[in-house]
């Protein structure tokens, strides 16, 4: 149990995809979307991709030392998984709105690469993918809420828009560093 909690804190906060690795930034800076469905799709995609990455790495790449072929598998897998998610009853209808944000989201590819590099078991890989997706969505929501509060005030025109969002993200990233510990050079 302790290991699962530790994995959750690592994936959601200390190694948050958006804050500590700056993955999926473009989707984050694009702004408003229906968070409920986007959260479901991102988390599902992240879990399925981490399973796919684990399976391919365990069965093929690490056995035949063919790590350089990862991209040839991961990117088509993202396309296939997103396409399959469209067939899920009820929520599948909402997918077209988020298709681009999912397929071209660097966070999804990032999760696959990290899941492949880390040597977790399948169970922990699934959990890692799940917590990464949840952490990404929480960071995305926090960014938008804080941006709304900040932009309601007077901010210099030059800083309006993306610069302010980047600064907010920088401070969120600093906050997540507290869970990592001291930085040494």
């Amino acid at each position: 149990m302790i290991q699962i909690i530790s994995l959750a804190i690592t994936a959601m906060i200390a190694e948050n995809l958006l804050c500590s690795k700056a993955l999926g930034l473009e989707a984050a800076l694009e702004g408003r979307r229906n968070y409920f469905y986007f959260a479901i799709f991102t988390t599902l995609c992240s879990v399925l991709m981490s399973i796919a990455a684990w399976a391919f790495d365990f069965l093929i790449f690490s056995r035949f030392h063919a790590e350089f072929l990862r991209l040839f598998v991961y990117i088509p897998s993202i396309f296939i998984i997103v396409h399959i998610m469209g067939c899920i009853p009820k929520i599948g209808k909402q997918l077209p709105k988020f298709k681009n944000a999912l397929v071209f989201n660097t966070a999804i590819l990032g999760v696959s690469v990290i899941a492949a590099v880390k040597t977790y078991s399948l169970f922990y890989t699934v959990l890692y993918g799940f917590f990464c997706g949840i952490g990404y969505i929480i960071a995305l929501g926090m960014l938008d809420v804080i941006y709304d509060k900040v932009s309601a005030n007077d901010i210099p025109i030059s800083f309006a828009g993306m610069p302010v969002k980047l600064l907010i993200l920088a401070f969120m990233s600093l906050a997540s560093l507290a869970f990592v510990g001291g930085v040494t050079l």
Partner: protein
Amino acid sequence: MRLRKILAGQMFARNPLLRGVCFLTLLITTTISLINGLAAGIFVSCAAIICLLLRWGISKFLSEEYYLAIYLIGVCAIVSLGQLAASALYPDFASRMELYLPITAIYCLTDRTFDYGTRKLHSVLGSIALNCLGFTLCCAGIGLVREFFAFGTVLGHRVISNYTKMPTMVLPVGGMITLAVILALLNYIARKGEKS
């Protein structure tokens, strides 16, 4: 004067690479020193230009149903080869960027990498060259600023003696703050230009 405006516009102000449309993750994470910034800029520019040429090439000969599949495989091949070349030539840079270099493929698959301007070949190539030059310069500039603030060095040479190191500048935080300030500066210059 007009040339200067076009250069400034294509290289920086209207450059889609610097407006947060594309390559933002790479710009923030890979530019931790001047050399790394230059390497990242050159890697991304080369990959993006080759992918664009591939897209032009295959779109003329293939129907739409085969086009995407072939383009996807082509992009993966280009980026993987680039990664292998980088790990052979600059192993330190490649191992540090193990997570981020593959991401270039995702960006190359989108059609938001370049601001073409017109459809004429020479102006398209000109725009792309200026976009890439602007992106590489920006990567190098951010790398320079971050290296200076993090270690007090430029290209590894100490500029300020007894400098207190700022470790956070080599983390994504430093990249975000530097990019935010640069974008605000570009906005300010653009607004001043519009007024005058």
